[in-house]
């Protein structure tokens, strides 16, 4: 019978699982449900029209792919779920255990995976005419549009000095555009800390990047061209504006559901919102050693989704999320991998190489004695990088910080 439950304490019997969101989180959760033996009805609802793809590739290789863009493609799925693509979830009723879709249908579930990700934040603009000049980079369509627009080598203002803004700036420069980056913080400082941000900024300037060290506060149009308004009162003119100023979790469809906490979708250490609802990926705020928050990154989404799938099937018997931060970026000829919490304060200890932008293996030790290992233009297996981050066996005990008291 649909909705049949076994007595409390035992594993819940689920017959219908609905996954909302068809990005890497929804895909991984679906694969993981199948791998764990769930052979009931699995339905995936996703408002994008295509199969899941790799978003990280969109701001890296995909901007540079010669003829056709292929770097974003992922291998075909094997979960054999019913996929409702191009369909959006509008509302959740956790009492009735159903999801209302924008095609008018209602999907009942025994178990629900929320994996609706996030969307790009845009600049505030009082001028509707100016909006058409502002691109963001989140979806495949965004990437195709950006590729189309940079073919003619326009002048570009990239707004936002995070990893995404810097990768976009790097891609646009490589395509032959004239690029100015507007960022009130030193680029990459918020993500990586002062030391590494200097290295990235130097590489950027070296590649011809111009920096406007002020916050973009608005966007206007003048003579058919966009004007970015800066907090210091000046304006930047360009042919094209690309904003990379953060992401907003897609929780709108959950607004009336009662499962949000202060507007956030918070999950426990097993990615559960409640026993029959789990959430994973960019949409979810989860407990980490540094508090409850979203960590909108690729491996974070994958690890959360695996945890979420098992928790939905096995409840408290499922393993808790063992979140191990991993970050990488490629820009201006630099390739960085980092294992451990970011940003990084102070200067590193050099395990290989030395200061400057050359190949190096570095380590920072945090106050709680955990560490972060960083490989810069240095090929190294991730398991090895992780071991360098936390070499001492004593440090295995630090996850105690993550555990929420029962």
């Amino acid at each position: 019978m649909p909705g049949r439950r076994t007595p409390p304490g035992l594993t819940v019997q689920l017959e219908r699982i609905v996954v909302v969101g068809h990005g890497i989180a929804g895909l991984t959760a679906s694969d993981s449900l199948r791998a764990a033996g769930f052979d009931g009805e699995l339905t995936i609802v996703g408002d994008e029209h295509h199969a899941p793809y790799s978003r990280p590739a969109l701001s890296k290789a995909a901007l540079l792919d010669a003829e056709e863009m292929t770097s974003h493609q992922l291998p075909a799925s094997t979960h054999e779920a019913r996929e409702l693509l191009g369909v959006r979830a509008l509302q959740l009723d956790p009492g009735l255990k159903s999801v209302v879709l924008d095609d008018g249908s209602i999907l009942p579930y025994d178990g629900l995976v929320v994996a609706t990700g996030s969307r790009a934040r845009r600049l505030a603009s009082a001028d509707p005419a100016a909006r058409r000049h502002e691109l963001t980079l989140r979806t495949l369509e965004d990437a195709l549009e950006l590729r189309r627009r940079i073919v003619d080598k326009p002048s570009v203002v990239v707004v936002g000095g995070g990893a995404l803004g810097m990768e976009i700036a790097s891609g646009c420069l490589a395509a032959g555009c004239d690029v100015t980056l507007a960022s009130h913080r030193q680029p990459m400082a918020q993500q990586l800390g002062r030391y590494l941000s200097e290295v990235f900024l130097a590489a950027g300037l070296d590649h011809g990047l111009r920096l406007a060290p002020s916050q973009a506060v608005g966007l206007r149009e003048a003579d058919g061209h966009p004007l970015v308004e800066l907090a210091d009162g000046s304006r930047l003119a360009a042919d094209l504006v690309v904003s990379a100023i953060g992401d907003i979790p897609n929780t709108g469809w959950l607004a009336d559901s009662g499962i949000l906490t202060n507007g956030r979708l918070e999950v426990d250490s097993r990615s559960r919102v409640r026993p029959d609802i789990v959430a994973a990926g960019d949409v979810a705020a989860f407990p980490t050693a540094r508090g409850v928050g979203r960590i909108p990154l690729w491996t974070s989404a994958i690890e959360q989704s695996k945890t979420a799938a098992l928790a939905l099937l096995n409840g408290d018997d499922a393993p808790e999320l063992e979140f191990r931060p991993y970050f990488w970026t490629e820009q201006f000829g630099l390739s960085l991998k980092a294992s451990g919490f970011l940003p990084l304060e102070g200067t590193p200890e050099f395990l290989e190489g030395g200061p400057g932008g050359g190949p190096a293996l570095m380590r920072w030790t945090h106050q709680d004695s955990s560490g972060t290992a960083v490989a810069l233009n240095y090929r190294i297996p991730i398991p090895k990088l992780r071991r360098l981050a936390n070499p001492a066996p004593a440090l295995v005990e630090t996850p105690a910080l993550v555990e929420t008291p029962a």
Partner: protein
Amino acid sequence: MEIILDRPRCEGHGLCEEVAPQLMHLDDDGELVLDVVHVDEGQLEAAKQAARVCPVAALRLA
């Protein structure tokens, strides 16, 4: 099933090795080496996960 590596695509992230160390590893130069090419039933799930985690889809199964 066979694991196929599109070598020019591989960026040496090693995320695949992390989920399937029994099937592949990065060598000292950071080049990915497939230790197992023909995967059996018992290795299939690990192979699938490795292909899935790669952010540039350099691995596939056929």
